[in-house]
């Protein structure tokens, strides 16, 4: 049994379970990349359809989520290349969330909003590396493989992201003292 337009040998129920398990991670990555829920939804759908089509190429026993995130980032960059009009940016005025428990857990809602804006100001690749490292807890090696860059480059992007964010929020003392 397979889906229309796909050659996937994966049973539908199993694939639905994959969607259930990883949709949020994929969506979250795409949302951090696009800053737009509508584009995120389109790209998430595209990601899972691609995954379904290419299920044969997934090496069982490897990190499924990393594989999906790689497809998602590829989908994002593909769309960016194809249509330069893809809206990257305008963030919602308020943080939209249906999960009030998580929302309440935030120490400072405004700060979260500021962080989101600050991360949006990073370059796409830097943002991708930062998100994958911080949210998905992937190693630099995995990130390098996922983003088709070297491990050193991944480290440098992380360095850049942290430096810019720290500088922006000014939390760290400007004049670091010496021991």
């Amino acid at each position, binding site marked *: 049994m*397979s889906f*229309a337009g796909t050659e996937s040998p994966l049973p539908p129920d199993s694939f639905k379970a994959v969607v259930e398990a990883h*949709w*949020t991670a994929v969506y979250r990555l795409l949302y951090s990349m696009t800053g737009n829920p509508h584009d995120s*939804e389109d790209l998430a759908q595209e990601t899972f359809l691609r995954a379904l089509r290419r299920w044969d190429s997934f090496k069982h026993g490897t990190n499924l989520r990393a594989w999906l995130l790689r497809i998602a980032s590829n989908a994002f960059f593909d769309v960016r290349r194809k249509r330069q009009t893809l809206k990257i940016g305008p963030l919602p005025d308020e943080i939209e969330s249906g*999960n009030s428990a998580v929302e309440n857990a935030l120490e400072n809602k405004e700060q979260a909003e500021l962080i989101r804006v600050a991360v949006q100001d990073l370059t796409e690749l830097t943002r991708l590396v930062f998100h994958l490292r911080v*949210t998905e807890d992937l190693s630099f090696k995995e990130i390098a493989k996922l983003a088709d860059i070297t491990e050193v480059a991944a480290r440098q992007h992380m360095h850049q992201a942290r430096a810019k964010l720290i500088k922006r929020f000014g939390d760290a003392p400007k004049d*670091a*003292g010496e*021991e």
Partner: protein
Amino acid sequence: MKCEAAQNWLLQCESLQPKTWPVGLVKHLRVCASCYQFAKSIKRLEKAWRRIPVPAECETSKLNFLARLSQLEQAKLPEIEQPESLPVFESSEELPALVPIDTVPELDVAEVEPGTAETHSLDELERPDSDPEIAQPRKVESEPAEKAVPRRDRRGKETPARDSGWGGMRWLAVAAAVFMVIIGIGLLLPSRNSPGADVVDRLIEWNAELANAPAKERKRLLEEYESFNTDLKRAVLSPEERQLAETLLADGRKLATSEDALTQAEVVTSIADKLMSRAAAAADKGNEKEIERHGTRYSRFNDRALKPMWNRFATFKAFEKKGGFIKDKGIGKDKGGFDKDKSFEKDKDKGLDKEKAGYDKDKAGSDKSGAKDEDKGVAMAFGKIEFDRAAYEYWLLQKMQFEQLYMRSPEFMRPDLHKQFDGWGRKGPPFGPGFGPKGRH
């Protein structure tokens, strides 16, 4: 450790768990409030990012997609619906009738007279009808049941029954094969005395020589590449040793052909890292012979390649080569180049001293805070001396890159193990109880 080095490390580290940090950094954070605060800020920032909720649309979009999947599935069902089992041919009309094996006419054993079987020609066997005797077989009356039944080939020709001698031959052949396999395994198993076993050590030496050799010497050393390659092909090595040897061979070639000091430094650091990793792995396993072998290798390479390299960079004059900067009239006491001892003093905590070490970012303009500061810094440092700004910035960049490279070296990343192995290449590893990095030293 200096604050700048510590913060730089924190910005690019993989994990914010202190247990994964270098000892020097942890010590520094214990006493430096500003760096501690810096680390805490990074941690807090990342925590805040992780806790930002996903938009509410996420859940609805997932449900939409799942519904779409179900629709796609249902739309496809009629086309791909198939019976549960594979179709079976129920009629034999379409196929030629199968002839049961039992009904195939077979020559009776007894119809062939002993001693006459060999006289049948091929034509006779192919056209049995031509021989009425074969067409109408006779029955044998006195055939002992115990008699060995002769075998027949495809054409029905009788072949002699197996004699007991073949069984013996077969066992002999099996024994010979087993013997050959044992000999083969024996040859393949690497030993320290096996041919080419020292190729890895020689490759390490070769890389160490290349690491600090001048261009002419490197060109000469490159000529040894082919002989190493041949030796490596012939050498009997374990898969891990072969992999290491192949990497060393490629690294050596890179060292010999690259003109860029930073690239060379990266290669040398990576070799040291590999050797240290192998020594560390051996230490984890508690294999003393392996610890000795890899620890000595690391130590020798450290002595012969890494230490001289850091010393060489301490007097790095790339900036002068660019032609713009007059060292003696330059930035105060600057001797040019990267000095790891001054920049990353771990034990004495001298650190990246602005006064003593290579450059002063506030004065010299490496501060990223703004162009105005840079101009001011340069003016303060150089006064009216003309200089090539691009060359100066290039020098600064290289210096910073060397510093970052040093921060990734085994000496910096694993100071405990480095300290344990240091000197083994000169005086050998310590022996006795507790030998090795895990034990007393």
